[in-house]
């Protein structure tokens, strides 16, 4: 094994990959050095996941080579067929973490080993538990190895998954290893991610190389040493993290696309990129009129309880966008589901002057009251993955798509074509299955389908999560425009930049109650202060 610590652990050289003749990766080169966190940034469709799948051996590159600790695999060719990430010192932690949630932490640590062990051999549980405990201790993860994974907090689950992946590797080959983190923190609140980054730092100090795939500049700045930006399948820009100011990165990410997608309805949308975090000042809001007064026909919720939420009262005027934020477990992200009747709760709700008891609310009644919910779990709750885009958009109003009493496919197709133009959904292919749209376009479809039902109250949970920057602008613009046309919006998010750009007011939760109400001018700093203060 080479001991030269300046040699890359994994070297990706001139990788090309096409699908059906369309190039997805072109001459991509990346060096992953020991002790370094290398961030891979790119908008949806830039080829990030294809590159990761080539590293995992799931796809074979059309040409190029990958060198792992001095062994070179040249694509295509006989050698390439031996490229098997499982046998190489490369481990992956994906967004879903790959933990078995009904097993204990210790059992999860040894799943792979147990699977490959001879069937008849006894499992020395006492020793296995001790091993898991010591691995967790070594990286400062204070989790009980006997705890069921399901009962861990999301951040602890992520940390367990990372420690597990890395210890598997370390046993295999010592320290010259590559850990690929494919957005494992996407579902974590921003402030929790710091604890994951500390862990990642521990791994690089140990000499490992880390490849971090991310959408989020904040994450990248927090942990990465080097940044490679993929655009249209080319590893166009490599930057030291110090050089990563937002203007440079956004320019590199979007290139000419930035102009093409700059037509967001809100004038401030494109400019808003630069004050995504911290930089927003009062000047940025001068052009945005606050609703003149709070209409009585808006939304009023009184004494809402349920889940972590205990006794919350709030009101949202028609035309107003109110942000909800807080630390994990503070209940801010449960409120939308309670107000939609998906999570049981109690209290009173008044929408457009009509009163409802939350106790008897269910999604069906919530809809009848004019409430719409855009859940954070787009794939599991937001849409029918296998159905076409137009049927997804038409589903909530399926009863209205009737011609002579029959459901009309044409009525749904026409509706989709109209709303694709309005919300910037591409491609405009009504029959294309939802799952084949990119993340940003999927979210546009989900939001469009609810706005089409003409709700009084729109509940949003992390509406911009996992969405590229251009689509994010479109989405924020669409939501603001919809609000102005007579809609009350509750926007639940941990992305302070989005809250600043999207909301008129922000309510900060702590321990299940609203502790701070922030009015204009909003800044990411004041929100953060209120969350932690």
């Amino acid at each position, binding site marked *: 094994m080479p001991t030269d610590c300046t040699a890359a652990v994994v070297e990706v050289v001139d990788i090309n990959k096409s*699908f*059906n003749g*369309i190039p*997805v990766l072109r001459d991509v080169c990346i060096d992953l050095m020991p002790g370094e966190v290398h961030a891979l940034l790119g908008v*949806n*469709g830039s*080829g*990030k*996941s*294809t590159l990761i799948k080539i590293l995992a051996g799931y796809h074979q590159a059309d040409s190029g080579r990958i060198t792992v600790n001095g062994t070179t695999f040249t694509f295509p060719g006989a050698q390439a067929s031996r490229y098997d990430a499982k046998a190489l010192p490369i481990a992956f932690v*994906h*967004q*879903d973490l790959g933990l078995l949630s009904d097993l204990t932490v210790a059992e999860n640590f040894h799943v792979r080993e147990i699977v490959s062990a001879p069937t008849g051999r006894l499992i020395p549980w006492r020793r296995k538990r001790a091993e898991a405990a010591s691995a967790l201790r070594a990286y400062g993860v204070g989790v009980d190895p006997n705890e069921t994974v399901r009962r861990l907090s999301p951040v602890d689950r992520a940390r367990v998954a990372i420690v597990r992946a890395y210890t598997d590797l370390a046993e295999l080959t010592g320290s010259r290893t590559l850990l690929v983190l*494919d957005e494992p923190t996407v579902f974590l609140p921003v402030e929790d991610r710091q604890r994951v980054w500390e862990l990642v730092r521990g791994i690089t100090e140990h000499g490992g190389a880390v490849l971090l795939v991310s959408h989020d500049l904040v994450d990248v700045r927090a942990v990465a040493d080097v940044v490679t930006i993929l655009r249209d399948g080319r590893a166009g820009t490599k930057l030291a993290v110090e050089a990563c100011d937002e203007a440079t990165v956004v320019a590199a990410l979007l290139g000419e696309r930035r102009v093409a997608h700059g037509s967001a309805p809100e004038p401030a949308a494109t400019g808003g990129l630069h004050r995504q975090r911290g930089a927003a000042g009062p000047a940025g809001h001068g052009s945005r009129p606050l609703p003149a007064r709070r209409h009585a026909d808006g939304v009023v919720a009184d004494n809402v309880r349920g889940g972590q939420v205990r006794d919350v009262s709030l009101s949202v005027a028609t035309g107003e966008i109110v942000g909800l934020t807080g630390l994990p477990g503070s209940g801010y992200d449960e409120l939308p589901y309670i107000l*939609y009747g*998906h999570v049981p709760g109690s209290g009173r709700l008044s929408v457009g002057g009509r009163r409802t008891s939350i106790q008897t609310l269910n*999604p*069906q009644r*919530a*809809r*009848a009251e004019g409430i719409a*919910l855009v*859940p954070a779990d*787009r*794939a*599991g*709750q*937001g*849409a*029918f*993955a*296998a*159905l076409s885009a137009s*049927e997804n958009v038409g*589903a*909530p109003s*399926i*009863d209205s*798509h*009737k011609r002579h*009493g*029959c*459901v009309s496919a044409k009525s749904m197709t026409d509706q989709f074509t109209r709303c694709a133009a309005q919300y910037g959904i591409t*491609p405009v292919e009504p*029959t294309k*299955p*939802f*799952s*084949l*749209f*990119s*993340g940003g376009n*999927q979210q546009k479809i989900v939001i469009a389908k609810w706005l089409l039902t003409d709700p009084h109250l729109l509940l949003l949970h992390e509406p911009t999560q*996992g969405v590229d920057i251009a689509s994010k602008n479109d989405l924020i613009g669409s939501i603001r425009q919809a609000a102005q046309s007579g809609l009350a919006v509750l926007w639940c998010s941990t992305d302070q930049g989005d809250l600043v750009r999207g909301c008129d007011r922000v309510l900060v939760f702590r321990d299940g109650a609203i502790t701070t109400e922030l009015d204009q001018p909003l800044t990411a700093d004041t929100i953060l202060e209120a969350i932690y203060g």
Partner: protein
Amino acid sequence: MAEAIETNVEAPGGGSAARTDPSRHEPVEVRHGVPAGTMGSLVASWSERLALPLLWLVVSLVFTFLPATGAHFATLATFGSIFGAGAVTVVLTLGLIVPALGGDYDLSVAYNLTLSSILLAELNVNLHVNIAVAAVIVVAVGAIAGVANAIVSVKFKVDPFIATLGTGTVMAGITLWVSHSATISGISVGLSNIVVTDRWIGLPIEFYFALGVALVMAFVLAYLPAGRKLKYVGLQRDVARLTGVAVGRVRTTAFIASGVLSAVAGIMYAGNAGAADPSSGVSLLLPAFAAAFLGSTTILPGQFNPLGALVAVYFLGTGITGLELLGASSYIQDLFYGGALIIAVIVSGVVRRKRNATKEQV
């Protein structure tokens, strides 16, 4: 509960879609396979849709021209008996696929059928109830059985596989109780006349009835909001719920429809024999499942569909009749239906995966 089912049986249409997590695959702008709309894909898609009907035609022709079977097979009587005997299974299979489309497997359908036929005979023969009145009562009882299934599976959230196995066994017990474990014969000839004796263009009325039910169901599923909602529930239950679909009500309705269709099939079953016995109807459960899955590979491949089920029932019936004419004993039925179910589930899984694979190449 949906997961519990998926681990047992690969459901056409459902399941896999719910499990693909689009946020993890970043779809790249690439055209997949043959662009839609070209001749090639049209031919491919229609050949897939029509493979089973064509195979049925081939099997029929083989038996018609095979010297060993031709003389008997090609007679109107044989055709009439294939279409007549199949009609009961068609209606039963249609009853099965209503809840199956919503993600619930109802194992009680065949027990419900047997109970219905016995109940009809008991009412008509021993209690001297007018046959039409008896039929109405039996259908009502079938609906109640559907309600019972819904209460256990929907209200008490028991996996329908287990729930309907339980309710079905209870129905089998009631059947034996009512009938004192004996065959009841002497049902009004009026029933046999409309079901099997009267013919139109050489085929018994029950065939046209089964065809009519299948067509109505196909229409409801494709063109009425009720049918679309059932499909939503089957695809991704959570999404359907959050979309505002009354999931519990849809599933309950599906179970009731299943109960009613099973009862109707039971009345037809009694009409065919002019009598009812407390056990033989149960043997229709496997043919119904085989036809439901085999039917999901044709007409609308990848999902349970009524016309596919109809074609599948007659394909299986034709095969068995032909083999029996060749001299095979009655054990051939179990071999054929069991084998057909296994092959149908495998093929429908392959069809579904192939369809998903072309969608998920990237």
